[in-house]
């Protein structure tokens, strides 16, 4: 019986982790965090750093908020969550500026804007406040991965079609260019991300329908 209970907890954790990656994906299904998904997906490099920062912030803040959930006074709940989230965001920003200055310049305000990303607040309010710390961490981690996977997919398409590169390395061979192939400048602009995300949403809906 003890074994069975352990299995259940393990399954539960796995479910919490995998849910936001597919069936409750924060971008494709819940339509959260779109703003940064448009802004930082011109290159894979910035998208990856953004995804890692976001995963760090959402999982750590979830963990701390859940740890304090019984102590946090109800009337100042939101501001407490915000303080914890922004502490992690500022830490991330300072770290990037010290070790990855170029990337932090490219990301400019968007690391700071993780604070206002609905995903982080949303997870704190709807999950961390009512679940134990380790599950809150897993939930945050899953949401970060779910957000990051969409970001990386969009960035891969935009960088490949927009500048012929993959992580800054040229992948479209030169002979294609000499044959008249041109990079799609449109892919560098924000509307391109909108269209790609729209197509991804559509794709996921179709795949989900087919599976059920």
């Amino acid at each position, binding site marked *: 019986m003890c074994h069975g209970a352990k299995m259940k907890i393990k399954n539960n954790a796995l479910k919490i982790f995998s849910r936001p990656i597919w069936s409750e994906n924060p971008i494709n299904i819940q339509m959260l965090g779109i703003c940064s998904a448009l802004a930082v997906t011109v290159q894979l490099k910035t998208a990856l750093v953004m995804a890692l920062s976001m995963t760090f912030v959402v999982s750590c803040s979830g963990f701390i908020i859940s740890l304090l959930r019984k102590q946090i*006074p109800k009337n*100042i709940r939101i501001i407490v969550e915000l303080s914890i989230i922004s*502490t992690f965001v500022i*830490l991330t920003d*300072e*770290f990037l500026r010290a070790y990855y*200055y170029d990337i932090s310049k490219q990301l*400019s305000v*968007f690391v700071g804007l993780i604070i206002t990303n609905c995903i982080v607040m949303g997870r704190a309010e709807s999950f961390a406040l009512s679940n134990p710390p380790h599950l809150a961490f897993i939930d945050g981690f899953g949401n970060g991965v779910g957000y990051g996977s969409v970001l990386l997919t969009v960035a891969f398409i935009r960088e490949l079609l927009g500048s012929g590169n993959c992580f800054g390395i040229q992948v479209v061979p030169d002979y294609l260019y000499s044959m008249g192939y041109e990079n799609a400048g449109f892919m560098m602009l924000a509307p391109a991300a909108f269209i790609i995300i729209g197509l991804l949403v559509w794709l996921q809906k179709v795949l989900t329908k087919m599976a059920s």
Partner: protein
Amino acid sequence: MSDQMKSIVFALLLCLGCSTLLTAAATRLQPLQAENIQIDRKKNILMAIGLLDSRQTYPATEINRLYQENIFKYIVDPSGTIIDQPTSSSMDQDNLMPIYLAMDSNERIRSYIIPVETRGLWGKIYGYLALQGDGSTIEGFTVYKHSETPGLGGEIETRWFQKNFVGKKIVDQNNNFMSVSIAKGRALDQVPEEKLPNYVDGISGATLTGQYLTRGLQEILSEYEPVSVRFRQNLLQCRMQTDVPWCENEN
């Protein structure tokens, strides 16, 4: 303890915890960040004279080496004389302006770089403007710090905007000082042909940033005009081997 009291105590403790953490992180990382900023400035100076490509990343050691080999920092006094150090302490410190010189392999001045610091729409814009040794042609322009709106005025830090400056003139056809201006929209559509060398394409949606930058560049370039005039008259060209850094070719 009443609920209200409890909230206040909790808030205070939370603030204390968060701020201790942030202070510790900020103090620990500050030296690294300061170094990054220095390297970024050097990189921008090198980019302004085309020695580095803005689309690539370079290791810090490479940037430091190129900077040390190519760039020399001096001071310009109001008459346009380039000096090593302020000669007397009575000299008005406010009128001394920094200038960076880039040398070619023959110890001749290839270009000179002036720091740009001007008002933008939301905050100050910092960058470098490099001019060729002829004193009239722009070699490059870079921005390393600004607070303009990302995607609009923030485009001043992008390559497409900055590369428009390359080859533009700060003088008109008769060699009179003109400065360089940012057009409202495409320069080709907005500006008469004879003035095209003095205009670069503007950024759509960022007319005000363009206006501030135009005004700022005009002010800064006119401050440096005395030294630019000397370059135009070929007075400053070579670098002597002696401890006097500049030979002024009086002919």
